[in-house]
């Protein structure tokens, strides 16, 4: 794992356990390491139960992590008191998944956008009004939308308001938790284009969380694939998608249908996982995929594999693959 000095967000050994009573605990996040540089988009990919949303919430302390370190611009944030933490929210913000649930139904768009300016930046009224107007324009809405309530807006418009709210304080990092998953396909493209434009204009770093591989391929510079609380593969998007190494990544890519004719035949044969995802409660010290993996050997149940660098920023957490990288067939073409 390369140590990136210029990383604007650095996460080390992040863990989150939920106690279940009777001494058992549910391990949602199990030792996650991330680096994001300014202006970069890192995608966190996984299915349900992977822990990706929990990672996002732990980073901003909406959920308190059990252990680990999170540093923004080198400054650690996990031990800060509430007042200092509040100031951190000027540098890192979040866009939520469900546009219906992420806006207070009783607040107009104007009030939603005004709030962070008032609370975080403590701007005087005139300045706030001007900034609110420029914010709506930046997300391609108009001043007419300012006095509307969320239920008077479409899903795509609500999500734009959520984005405007996140960039209102001019943060450096924005975490996007499945920002397009609740939107119709035709709206999705517009929102993604908007996000990419804003990233360029404002030099934002994005932590982009998604289960949709197509979207990830479209927007992300680097990808980290998560399974059962840990990262199993990471690297530049084209590398991971073009030549996936970890069996889970290959299973994921081979299962995702592509809306194009004739691709199915040309695609690598499906790599199938046996059975269902194992329980996150009191997991054994073994590879998370053990019991489901077609490449499994006896060594897989003896200790959890760590991420091994394969070169070029591409790392994989699988002892079998790491031992013989050359022979792995390429995945999704």
């Amino acid at each position, binding site marked *: 794992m390369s140590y990136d000095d210029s990383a604007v967000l650095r996460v080390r050994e992040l863990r989150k356990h939920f106690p279940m009573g009777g001494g058992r605990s549910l391990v949602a996040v199990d030792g996650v390491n991330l680096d994001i540089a300014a202006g970069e988009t890192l995608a966190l990919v996984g299915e349900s139960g992977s822990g990706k949303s929990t990672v996002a919430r732990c980073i*901003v302390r909406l959920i308190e992590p059990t252990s680990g370190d999170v540093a923004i611009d080198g400054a650690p944030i996990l031990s800060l008191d509430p007042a200092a933490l509040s100031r951190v929210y000027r540098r890192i913000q979040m866009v939520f998944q469900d546009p219906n649930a992420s806006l*207070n139904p009783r607040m107009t768009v104007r009030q939603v956008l005004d*709030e962070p300016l008032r609370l975080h930046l403590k701007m005087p009224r005139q300045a706030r009004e001007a900034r609110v107007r420029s914010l709506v324009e930046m997300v391609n809405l108009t001043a007419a939308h300012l006095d509307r309530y969320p*239920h008077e807006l479409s899903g795509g418009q609500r999500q734009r308001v959520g984005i405007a709210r996140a960039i209102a304080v001019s943060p450096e990092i924005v975490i996007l938790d499945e920002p397009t998953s609740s939107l119709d396909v035709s709206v999705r493209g517009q929102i993604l284009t908007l996000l990419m434009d804003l990233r360029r204009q404002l030099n934002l770093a994005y932590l982009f969380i998604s289960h949709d591989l197509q979207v990830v391929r479209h927007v992300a510079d680097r990808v980290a694939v998560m399974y059962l609380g840990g990262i199993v593969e990471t690297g530049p998007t084209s590398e991971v998608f073009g030549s996936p190494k970890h069996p889970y990544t290959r299973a994921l890519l081979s299962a995702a249908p592509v809306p194009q004719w004739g691709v199915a035949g040309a695609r690598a044969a499906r790599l199938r996982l046996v059975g269902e995802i194992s329980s996150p409660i009191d997991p054994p010290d073994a590879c998370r995929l053990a019991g489901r993996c077609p490449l499994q050997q006896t060594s897989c149940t003896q200790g959890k594999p760590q991420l091994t660098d394969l070169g070029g920023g591409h790392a994989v957490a699988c002892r079998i693959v790491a031992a013989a990288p050359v022979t792995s067939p390429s995945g999704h073409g």
Partner: protein
Amino acid sequence: MRIGIALVCIYTGIAVLSFFWTPYDPLSPGVGDGYDPPSSTFLLGTDRLGSDMVSRLMAGARYDLGITVIAVSIALSAGTTIGVIAGYFGGVLDTVVLRLVEVFQAFPGLLFAMLVVQAVGPGIVNVILVLSFVGIPDYLRLARAEIHARRDWQYAEAARMVGNRPWRVAFRHLLPNSAGPLLAFTSINAAFVALITASLGFLGLGLSPNTPEWGSMIARGQDGVMTGQWWVSFFPGLAILGLTGAFYLLGDALSDLTDPRRR
């Protein structure tokens, strides 16, 4: 719904008016001869002591309506505040509060009110305080449940990210969105409290004997019902019925009004 609002306004108007004018002095006996039937002099008759019914009814509005409104307001404010805090912050505080509430709720409302009023002694202030206490647990539970349900919603998370301290998220963001159920409950609770007020009066607890409170007026007119002087108990009873009905109808209207989707 409009009927509810209209009725409550009428009652309030009468209560306020009674401070300034009533046909006769509500507290004076002997204005009439005693058990005068309804006539042009005494529109609704007089009671056993000869006091004018209309005047006593008007003055009674002050007590029944006033006690109810004040007691409900106190219960609403106190109960909701504690409930919001318990619901949002959870933990030990929440558990302790819930257990206390359960103890309170183990007693049926009216019985509890009766016992405490007897214990603390008569007086309108005591009556109001006792009635507030009886109401707090219900508001507390409702507010707590509403806040608890919304606590993990994304707009609550967003409110934290935007710079709100936790208590502000709870009171400024979550509570207003729970206004609908709370207000609807308030009205029904008000109806209930009005009934308990009248019941306490009927049983002769809490207020001094000559107070023109509707419940005690009904009690005073009980003998008359058997001998044909029906108006002494009937009109106060009607007044109570009207008030509780008005509160029920008001509940509907309030919960609709507070829904932003209706605008």
